[in-house]
């Protein structure tokens, strides 16, 4: 990585605007980070803070893999600017777990085989968690609508919808995994 002095020099040469200091509240931790005004929230989260659970699939708001929660609302971090989210309560996939236990959505996704390649699923699970926060018992159609901004290429969505129904206590997983679900974060 270039030194701050080098960075400053070539920013000046390139006409890049100077970096600004922003304070980001991510998963309950406050981080002071220097970002360019153009830096997206996703870039700040992934590359500056190293929270690589949020994924970049398209970098233009089409696929939903970068979905994070901002004050409880699911947003696309790849088309949001980091500077706009000062002071917002941000939650990424790394912050869904509570008190050492994975979120019921995470557990159900694992249980039901909703995780194939897993790449879209951080965003998908964030959207699902946001849905359950506002609607504890969504219908299958409501789940489809809530997840329609998150593209998945592996599953055909079937097991994802099943998993959200399991997480919301509306479906029994047909053959329970005999292994105890400790829910402990590995």
């Amino acid at each position, binding site marked *: 990585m270039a030194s701050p002095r080098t960075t400053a020099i070539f920013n000046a040469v390139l006409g890049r605007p100077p970096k600004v200091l922003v304070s980001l509240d991510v998963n309950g931790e406050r981080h002071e980070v220097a970002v360019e005004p153009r830096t997206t929230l996703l870039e700040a989260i*992934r590359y500056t803070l190293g929270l*690589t659970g949020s994924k970049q699939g398209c970098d233009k708001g089409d696929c939903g893999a970068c979905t994070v929660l901002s004050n409880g609302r699911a947003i696309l971090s790849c088309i949001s600017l980091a500077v706009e989210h000062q002071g917002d309560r941000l939650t990424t996939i790394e912050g869904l777990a509570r008190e050492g236990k994975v979120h019921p959505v995470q557990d159900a996704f694992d249980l039901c*085989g909703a995780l*194939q*390649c897993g790449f879209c*699923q951080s965003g998908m699970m964030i959207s699902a968690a946001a849905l359950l926060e506002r609607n504890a018992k969504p219908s299958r159609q409501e*789940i489809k609508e809530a997840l329609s901004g998150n*593209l998945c290429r592996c599953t055909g969505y079937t097991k994802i919808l099943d998993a959200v129904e399991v997480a919301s206590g509306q479906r029994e997983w047909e053959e*329970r995994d*005999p292994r105890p679900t400790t829910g402990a974060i590995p």
Partner: protein
Amino acid sequence: MSVDGKRNGPGALGGNGEFDVVGRRLRKVDGLKKATGEAVYADDIKLPRMLHCKILRSPHAHARIKHIDFTRCRAHPGVVEVLEGREIPTRYGVIPWTPDEQALAADKARFIGDEVAAVAAVDELAAEEALELIDVEWEILPALIEPEDALREEANKIHESSKKGNISKHVDLSFGDVQGAFAGCAAIADESFFYEGSTHTPIEPHCAIGHYDSDGNLTVWSSTQIPHYVHRELARVLELPEARIRVIQPFLGGAFGGKSDPFSLEFVVAKLSMKTGRPVKCLFTREEVFWAHRGRHPMKMRFRVGLSKQGAIEAVDSKILIDGGAYSSFGLVTAYYAGQLLTGPYRFGTYHFDSTRVFTNKPPCGPKRGHGSVQPRFAFEVALDMAAEKLGIDPIEVRRINFIGENVRTVNDQLITSNGFLRCLELVETASGWKERKGKLGFGRGLGVAGSMYISGTAYPVYPNEMPQAGIQVKLDRSGKVTIFSGASDIGQGSNSLPAYLIAEEIGCDPRDCVVVASDTDLTPVDLGAYSSRITFMVGIACLEAGQKLWAQISAAVAEKWGVEAAQVDGALGTIFVSGTEQRISFREAVQLAEAKFGTLGSTGSYRTQKLGGNYRGGTIGASPAYSFGAHVVEVEVDPETGLWKVERVWAAHDCGRALNPTLVEGQIEGSVYMGYAEAAMEEMTYYPSGLHRGPSLLDYRIPTSLDTPELTALIVESNDPNGPYGAKEAGEGPLHPVIPAISNAIYDAVGVRLTELPFHPGKVLRLLRNNRSPRAERSEVNRSPRAERSEVERPPASLDEAREAPGGTSAKSSAGVSVR
């Protein structure tokens, strides 16, 4: 392994009554890592001093590179190093017979998006800015966008190396007297079809990191599904000994065949790292993923299917023109698969196919899930319905009549072992209420059926050799931990979990005590990769061998201790015991007994390529140790006013031999059906006449969301293959095939029009409805148009060219883009 019903019985643990692990809905070994965001994918890797690379791509579809000037680029303060094609000119390709790619084009660019030059810079933005500062002097050549043009203009060769004009591969194979057989047929369907190209769009874009360290060792982390082939090609192109190269596939965000070629970025990051001595990363943008492509080949197909009076398939004849795009990729195989994989689940009396893959100046096509066989399967299954209709035979019945059976040879001399196709048909017939509902749903609603088969790996390795195709190494630790080293590439299908399940079944450990180290060429044995649906079958067999060797040692040591015969010792889920006695110890203790007796414990297993296939040129291509089979029924509703159609439900039955984990098998069926539906409904790689892609983004290239995807019922059939591990066969690609023709057949049942071109846009449906006067269609108000003459509609086109001009035929493409002149 048998089970002690009392202590370790399946009843207590939810097994299927036969096995302890196999057949149970276990979690994946890496599921929680993915659920928590902890899984590290290629772009999540950040190394000290890492540079970022960007690749300059050609703005011309066909142009000679006269000169590249990096002067302005090098002056950019963020630029550390640049690279051009002549520095790494060695041509490569996944198929060793057709090496026609260069990491960066040294002579000419062959499609809009072809890689030309690269920069390594301090950050991604600087690299991107620096690309603008590379000056390329071009000599623009006439571009060949349509396959017919490429065939005609032989002198304008896209590849100087091709033997004849722009032909990438031509295959013409005949099995029996096809023309003679047609003469005796009671009904013949003769129809032209067009299958539009589509692409994989894994949600993870391609990414690679190269690190050439001070010891002269090169490590490449890549989002590849073929680490071994990448390893080989890196060595060739970079002129490094293979022993100096390590390829690691981190967690992979989807592939579907789109990451089964060596790609430019792998060579470029490696070479730039060698030049700079620093790690270099390259991450494709979404747009670049569309350029990288290697997706479904567009195919123009003429199919003739002849049936006897009883409905037996006496003759099948096809002529197929395959649009290959700019490079060979797997194209040699594609041209064969377009014919070789069609000869089941039905018995063909005679068969002839003639397939030609041509180069065009478009992104290269390759192996998308169901490689080469999805397109002809679509055409054949629709044509079969057409012929059966002439004889008044029900679509399910004609498929049942022609069932090829088990332990038989196909017309092209492939050996079929297990075959659960009849059971698949029976399941979807029952589940859909076919007998009660078919033909009784009223105008606008219909049912359609189709079948298919697919390979469980291919007997033909990509490069000829006598070594195993797959290998497994197992290390037993005295703690009871089992470390399994597997070369297989987990692309989401669960191949990291498979060895844990199978080794646990074999040696009686708890699958949770297995750690799987995968797809790292320094640490794991060679596996040829995640393609041809080979992993479950081949890696599975390697697991059984490795597990059985260990079990021989464990059971011998325990038997000695207890004074019983080794054959009496049993084990399940972490307990080793003698059935019907109180004798039992933990797996950990058993391992310690074995280590004391035999020394350090470890074993290997491999899958060796069997000699299979017909005794003729190309007879090994399509030869598989086991074939999967499937049948789908689709119910559609069509609005005759708008042409809009909707799949109400898909019933998808698939014979996977044995479901080693039913959840994962269902996931493969569901994902396949989704992808097939997507190709039928909306996906299309279309280009402007210049060769420029019309919409290389996930907004413009439409793929189904959760709202678009139909509800489906996955039905598993277990035919228990005699050669498969615990009887297992493939499940990852076969189930993509039938849904597409089943939708076309269901639309015909609903409104009486035959959709012969993908995708089935509502506009096409409407146009066909307006031109159609079949008895079924006449019941609709909108079909009262007198314009279409019956003879014109029913007369089959005499050639592919005529088909393009036919009413409602492929001419619709002029608006869809592919045939635009």
